């Protein structure tokens, strides 16, 4: 599986998307731009926390696209997510075993570290590792109304896509407009 394929699946779902900085945001933007996308431009490690805050603040489903390197920077976040457990929250950790946006330096998930076990031990009950897009779809559908953490195993290739050309203030204003829109 490639990361951009996982992101494409997520971009087709109904909900708000918090997307990790670097290549994940660039790939999401290249697939499709939408007001429901919050592209992170900085603050590495914060994706899962931003998504948690958003899920607690409102009722729409929140998909956070995180990465192995990023979640390893903020593992405490998994314990806070477990404790507050908003049922409208889905955290997808794309695990390519490397820091893909900085030259593919290896992370510990390519060695002995098991993110699924960490998430479970943090107290999250619905955690699934997926290695195919079909499996990913199936689990997103099956647990669409509950707190779900997915670890999606991908290779460490980056798509050849440009930077996100949007200003942070614009991303925020447009996104908040989407958050406030009533659901049909």
């Amino acid at each position, binding site marked *: 599986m490639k990361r951009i394929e996982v992101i494409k699946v997520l971009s087709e779902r109904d909900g708000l998307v918090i997307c990790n900085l670097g290549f994940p945001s660039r790939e999401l933007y290249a697939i499709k731009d939408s007001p429901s996308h919050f592209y992170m431009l900085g603050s590495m490690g914060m994706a899962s926390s931003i998504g948690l805050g958003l899920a607690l603040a*409102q009722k729409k489903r929140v998909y956070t696209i995180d990465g192995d390197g990023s979640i390893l920077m903020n593992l405490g976040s998994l314990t806070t997510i477990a404790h507050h457990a908003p049922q409208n929250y889905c955290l997808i950790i794309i695990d390519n075993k490397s820091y893909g946006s900085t030259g593919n330096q290896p992370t510990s998930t390519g060695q002995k570290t098991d993110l699924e076990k960490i998430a479970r031990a943090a107290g999250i009950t619905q955690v699934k590792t997926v290695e195919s897009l079909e499996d990913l779809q199936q689990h997103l559908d099956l647990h669409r109304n509950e707190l779900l953490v997915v670890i999606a195993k991908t290779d460490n290739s980056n798509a050849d896509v440009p930077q996100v050309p949007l200003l942070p203030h614009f991303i925020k204003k447009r996104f908040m407009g989407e958050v406030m829109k009533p659901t049909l």
Partner: protein
Amino acid sequence: MNPHIDDEIVNILREEGIDLLCSVPCIMLAGVLKKVETTSIIHIPVTREEEGVGIAAGAALGGKRPALLMQNSGLGNSLNALLSLTKLYRLPLPLIISQRGGKGEKVLAQMPMGKATPNLLKASRIDYVRIKERDDLFKMRKMIHKAFANDRVTAILLLRKLWDETH
């Protein structure tokens, strides 16, 4: 008789419409944290101050009025997120900070960050106030208001003396 200083602080949070509070504990803030639990404010204890910055940013995107309660040592743990997330996207966030490392500090390790805190805030262009007595608390109100009126990070440094007065 004046209300307890912890009550006054929590009342200001409520009156300024704070509805979600992330916190990392500090002994100076223990009373405030206990009182917050008796209010309707959603209280989210976080594992690290930076995590609180992320949650607060998400909550603000979702229409909440968040605040972050922490010790000044936590400023060092959260500065990158405060600048490259909250400030970059012009999100509101008042930081309610217990200022250790000043007069009467008994823990040597608190001194370096105590000294650096105002300079770090200045260098980061985060407006702040120092509150050392009850009569200064109106400034806390103003700083919270400013954060939401102007979509920015502001900081309120609560000095030890504020509690000495009532204990």
